[in-house]
């Protein structure tokens, strides 16, 4: 049986790796993998010199024993708090396929437990390898792996123990109470031991010891070597020492003890003989629902406020674009209104704080801060409010069957996001301008910031920029549908991270290219406006007009081009997996 289980576990792991490697034949995964690997290389392996010096110092100081001490405390806390979890959480979860194949199979519960432990081994090996590579210590991979595996067996045993306690009518709250009592008792014991520490005997080279941080180490070691503390941490220390042993002898002893504990935990778990099948099915369903919800939240399709009303009544006839805007504003109300409330409350809080102080300096400081937010909001706003084509990705097939041209559909789709972003931008800019005006600053260009003309100029410039930003983001599912697809089997780890980096870099690049013509026009128009309207507050708004014209023209052509592309989009391939 063990051989079969091991084969299944290894084949599963091997096939998963092969599948991910095969996926690299597709450019989106390959590019993502290269970008992710480059990021990983530069930020993990090629640490900056300062971090490397700090790590080297940690090693020189022989901080290993201190790390093991603290590691033991963490292990102890994990072991205790595991008993305080709800009865159905973790430890017993099987995948849907495992439930379908293994539960009806002629297997004992002990076999299922054994399978669960063996199944986790490739992943535990991988995690241990990663930790060994990027950790502060090199080597001792085997110790980390065994410690991880035995902890997993322990958690399975505790899960079954919790289920067993429930049969004795000892539910979540009594367990939580007992765990709280144990932790409280331990805390009292620790405090009493700290009080008995007294004054440490100073070493001869005291100055040097303090300088290198050795004094702290001595104090910590003195505490952890107290007989009571050492006794409490006796078992957890084997786990920490297996992962971070001081020498090979410690490694060997720790491994033996931890492995023996693993066997003991397994037999205790098997002896508990609790019916976990039903709980496992429940846990599997909950996990699937949780993943669905997390995915929905990530792509902004999670309906948070189910009963939020529509912002306006939809008339039966009229421009069809209004129907799309109406639909997307409902999506905003139900999926992401929380963001609008958060931003509005944030601005209200800041303005309220400034008004409460009645201090011109506060007015100016908070006004400047709001101005800064108004300047940067167009950059991240389109990412926060995705109630547009991005939200409708799984329904592109239906959208394409509607009697509306691609161009009008794209324009209507981004309009709702643009409305809400413009509304928030108006709040930022107006609040900033009002506070700056109230500060009484009358020098240089600052006085322009406190005028209504300035608010108009800000809105004139930022709304087309936001429209272009929204167009860029909506163009991804239309031009590169594969990059926008979110399937159940989407890549994780550094491939996903790389894909996000590439998308972000692409967005920025296109935005910069789109802004260049406007910037070229803006520079001379500012000079001309300054020359002729310098005494008038309207000069900023006048200066912005040509650049606004360029940006608006770009947005207009962008909508037309994207609309035409949308009509040619073939949703049959990639979108099927959504």
């Amino acid at each position, binding site marked *: 049986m063990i051989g079969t289980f091991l084969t299944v576990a290894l084949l599963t792991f091997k096939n998963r790796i092969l599948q991910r490697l095969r996926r690299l034949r597709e450019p989106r995964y390959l590019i993502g993998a290269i970008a992710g690997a480059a990021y990983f290389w530069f930020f993990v392996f090629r640490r900056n010199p300062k971090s490397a010096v700090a790590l080297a110092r940690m090693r020189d100081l022989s901080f290993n024993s201190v790390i093991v001490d603290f590691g033991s405390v963490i292990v102890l806390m994990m072991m205790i708090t595991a008993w305080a979890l709800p009865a159905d959480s973790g430890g017993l979860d099987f995948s849907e396929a495992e439930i379908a194949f293994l539960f009806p199979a002629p297997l004992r519960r002990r076999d299922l437990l054994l399978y669960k432990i063996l199944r986790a081994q490739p992943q535990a090996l991988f995690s241990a390898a990663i930790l060994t590579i990027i950790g502060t210590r090199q080597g001792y991979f085997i110790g980390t792996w065994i410690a991880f595996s035995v902890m997993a067996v322990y958690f399975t045993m505790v899960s079954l123990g919790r289920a067993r306690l429930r049969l004795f009518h000892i539910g979540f709250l009594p367990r939580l109470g007992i765990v709280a009592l144990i932790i409280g008792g331990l805390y009292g014991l620790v405090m009493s031991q700290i009080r008995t520490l007294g004054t440490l005997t100073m070493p001869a080279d005291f100055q040097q010891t303090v300088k290198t941080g050795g004094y702290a180490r001595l104090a910590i070691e003195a505490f952890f070597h107290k007989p009571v503390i050492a006794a409490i941490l006796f078992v957890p220390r084997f786990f920490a020492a297996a992962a971070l042993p001081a020498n090979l002898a410690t490694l060997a002893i720790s491994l033996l003890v931890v492995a023996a504990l693993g066997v003991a935990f397994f037999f205790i778990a098997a002896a508990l003989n609790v019916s976990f099948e039903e709980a496992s099915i429940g846990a599997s369903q909950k996990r699937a629902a949780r993943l669905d919800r997390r995915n929905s939240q990530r792509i902004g399709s999670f309906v948070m406020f189910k009963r939020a009303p529509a912002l306006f009544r939809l008339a039966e*006839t009229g421009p069809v674009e209004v129907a799309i805007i109406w639909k997307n504003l409902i999506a905003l109300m139900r999926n992401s209104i929380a963001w609008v409330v958060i931003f509005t409350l944030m601005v209200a809080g800041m303005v309220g704080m400034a008004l409460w102080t009645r201090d011109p300096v506060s007015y100016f400081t908070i006004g400047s801060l709001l101005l800064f937010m108004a300047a940067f909001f167009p950059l991240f706003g389109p990412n926060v409010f995705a109630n547009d084509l991005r939200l*409708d990705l799984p329904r592109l097939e*239906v959208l394409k*069957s509607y009697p509306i041209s691609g161009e009008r559909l794209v324009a209507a789709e981004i309009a709702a996001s643009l409305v809400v972003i413009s509304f928030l931008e108006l709040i930022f800019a107006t609040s900033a301008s009002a506070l700056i005006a109230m500060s009484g600053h009358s020098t240089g260009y600052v006085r322009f910031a406190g005028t209504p003309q300035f608010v108009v100029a800000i809105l004139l410039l930022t709304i087309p920029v936001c429209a272009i930003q929204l167009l860029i983001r909506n163009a991804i599912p239309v031009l590169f549908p594969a990059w926008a697809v979110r399937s159940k089997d989407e890549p994780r780890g550094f491939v996903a991270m790389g894909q996000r980096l590439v998308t972000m870099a692409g967005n920025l690049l296109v935005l910069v290219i789109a802004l260049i013509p406007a910037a070229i026009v803006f520079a001379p128009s500012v000079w001309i406006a300054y020359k002729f309207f310098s005494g008038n507050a309207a000069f900023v708004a006048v200066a912005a007009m040509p650049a606004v014209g360029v940006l608006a023209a770009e947005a207009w052509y962008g909508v037309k081009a994207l609309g035409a592309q949308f009509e040619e989009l073939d949703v049959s391939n990639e979108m099927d997996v959504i």
Partner: protein
Amino acid sequence: MDYGIEVSGLTKRYDSLVAVKDLSFAVKRGEVLGLVGPNGAGKTTTLRALAGIHPPTDGIIRICGFDLRNDAVDAKRHLAFMPDEPRLFDYLTVEEHLQFVGRLYQVTGVKEKMDPLLHEFELTDKRKSLPSELSRGMKQKLMIACGFIHDPDVLIFDEPLTGLDPLGIRRMKESIVRRSQAGASVILSSHLLHLVEELCDTVAVIQHGTRIAYDTIDNLKFALAKGRSDLSLEEAFLRITAEETAGA
């Protein structure tokens, strides 16, 4: 204008794969055409091309006389596409779905049309519910109700009975018959051959993207019966596809 749907030389390629090859057929007003074929034959690809979801590589599709490529919006105004998998907006209620679709198709009197439709599809009690609060069958019914709200001249169904309960199936069949009798051109794909036999006037059998048979059900059965009078469409279908496979 006798034909709701006219398809001529429809071809759809995905790189080297030819999903549909030189397919031609026409559906008269009031006619129900069944599109049948084994899995992967190209039925869904054909229906999606008819609904304007993906552009064909070659060929002409006319909906009520409008070329789907050149007069896409006018053509789509006359049709309703009901996919096999209900693709609903997670954040719109049942009622809002109908209002939304009504506005897209410029339907006057949506409120008056909504109530009978909701009643027909047993969704009256669910009018304020979101799709997440509906069962699979109810979602399918809502998708179909959305398709019916503008009284389309052309109805395209991809596996219309998937997920429906027995009463839902009966009502669905009645709806299809009623709408075809009122003059709508209907095309449906299904693996349920008894349904096709019951509802359809003509059948097009496709395999590997190619049309291998196209006639009225009676003619098809007669041609294959060879003296037998009790040949079902299922047997006819199996024979046609087997002959084609053997011939290939």
